């Protein structure tokens, strides 16, 4: 027993170093005054960040990504909320397979989903590839996450509150806006934020389903080919990293606080 107590915390710390070490190199080198990402560090500079702020195609792709991510987060949260309400309120026959189907995008390799969507968009319906197709693909990826977050939230609160609202004469719609939605709100915000980050960071689907308009990850990927652009790429990567981290922390705080009364929730 005593030996394991000594070992596990050491392992945990080493693990965190392994997990965070490589990623933290990005911000570290982004402030380094050199074209190569090598030690020793040369000197502190914000040049890369200034360069980043003045790159028109970067700003364009940032705008595209923000638009897609905003739309995706709202749409997938709406779908997730409806599905979560259905699943948590009623004992539905066939619930298992239906849930399994909705969760499928979590496990199917995203290249399969991407090429399948590409085939149906281009070759079956002849839909031009735009940011809309990227957004549609991202909704497919985000709905399972939204639904999981919202199910955990909805399972946690007392059903009698909704019944009371009904007994007091509110119709279904008013009950939803006055009781269900406020109670689910932390879950809703958490789902919005989570879908936003997933969409903002997603590369594979965006690569297959975007037309001329790039999203930020596609722009980032295209920059990786140019060694002389490395500092700016590092700066861009670090910025994305910081923004995603802030959003994720905020979303997690909301989500975990929301379900603390029940069992610890999974993903």
């Amino acid at each position, binding site marked *: 027993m005593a030996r394991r107590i000594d070992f596990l915390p050491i392992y945990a710390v080493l693990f965190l170093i392994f997990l965070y070490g490589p990623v933290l190199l990005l911000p570290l080198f982004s402030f380094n005054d050199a074209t190569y990402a090598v030690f020793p560090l040369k000197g502190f500079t914000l040049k890369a960040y200034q360069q980043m702020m003045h790159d028109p195609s970067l700003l364009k792709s940032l705008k595209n990504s923000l638009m897609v991510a905003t739309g995706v987060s709202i749409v997938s949260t709406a779908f997730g909320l*409806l599905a979560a309400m259905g699943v948590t309120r009623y004992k539905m026959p066939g619930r298992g397979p239906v849930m399994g189907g909705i969760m499928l995008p979590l496990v199917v390799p995203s290249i399969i989903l991407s090429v399948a969507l590409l085939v149906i968009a281009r070759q079956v319906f002849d839909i031009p590839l735009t940011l809309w197709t990227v957004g549609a693909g991202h909704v497919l990826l985000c709905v399972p996450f939204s639904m999981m977050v919202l199910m955990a939230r909805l399972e946690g609160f007392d059903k009698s509150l909704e019944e009371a609202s009904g007994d007091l004469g509110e119709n279904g719609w008013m009950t939803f806006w006055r009781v269900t939605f406020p109670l689910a709100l932390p879950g809703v915000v958490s789902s919005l934020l989570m879908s936003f980050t997933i969409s903002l960071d997603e590369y594979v689907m965006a690569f297959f389903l975007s037309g001329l308009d790039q999203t930020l990850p596609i722009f980032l990927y295209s920059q990786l080919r140019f060694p002389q652009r490395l500092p700016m790429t590092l700066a861009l990567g670090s910025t994305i990293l910081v923004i*995603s981290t802030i959003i994720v922390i905020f979303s997690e705080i909301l989500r975990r606080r929301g379900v603390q009364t029940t069992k610890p929730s999974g993903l």
Partner: protein
Amino acid sequence: MSDAAKGSFVAHGDRARAAKGSLIQRFPWLRGYLLMSPTLLVMLAMLVAPIVALVVRSFWTQNVFQIDTTFTLRNYAQIFQLSDKITYWMSIPFPFANPVYLILLVKSILMSLAVTAFVMLLAYPMAYFMAFRVRRHKFLWLILITVPIWTSYLLRVFAWKIMLGFNGVINSSLIKIGLIDKPLDFLLYSPSAVMLTLAHAWVAFAILPIYVSLEKIDRSLLEAATDLGDKPWERFWHITLPLSAPGAIATSLMVFIPTVGDYVTPTLVGGSGGSMIGNSIQILFGRQNDAPLGSAVSVVMMAVITAIVCLFLWAVGYRKIRAREAI
């Protein structure tokens, strides 16, 4: 007459409404499906329909710029055509005329298996630590593990490129220390670089579900085992491991399945030696402009993955384990 007609119409409407009401009253779960219907429709249109289209496409052929829609097995024949000339990869014989897709598939599966094993070995102790050792600041640990899951996958691959590159962090540091004279060129652009990067990208993802299954274990069982004289190791072996097995098995599948088809990591850190089946699918749909063959390769890949998963679940007796958990 018109009154009578109106009367019967109203009565009919009422009856219909009553019948509808009673249907929903008789089967309240229908409301559940009603609520879910928009989501289900979207998933049907964007998940089921595209995959059906992909499968259909795999039986068609590409004629330069046009698609020939006569049903044919030509794409599958191209993948599976036997030949007397045997190609060897890692001393595995491939008696196929055009073995590249199958070799890449086998290679991807082996690499993913290695990644999955590595991820589970790294993740399980960490999940165990969080479930049983962390008492204070549990929330902080959860956040620390969760953040890397949601921060860009592309950036983590990029970070490893910087770490392992010819002029990368590891090489330049080793030269600085004086351990080596020239950069090691095998670090980047190799299957091991791909596996290391994939493991790093998935390990955080694997911790949470294992953690949840460990956290759910009834602590009184562990106390009982201790009271009955089990040593900590025996206790782990008899109680903790079996009870967390369903979660761990599900987690390993959630790592294995998506990594088989990954193509970003092999493209960025794999080079030519580290490419995987996802790369050929991407090339077939992109540069080679042969969507039907690409669809066929995708279908074969999905079929093989499904077969492996079913075989694995059957071999470990997943149903039995689940049943035991339910008791």
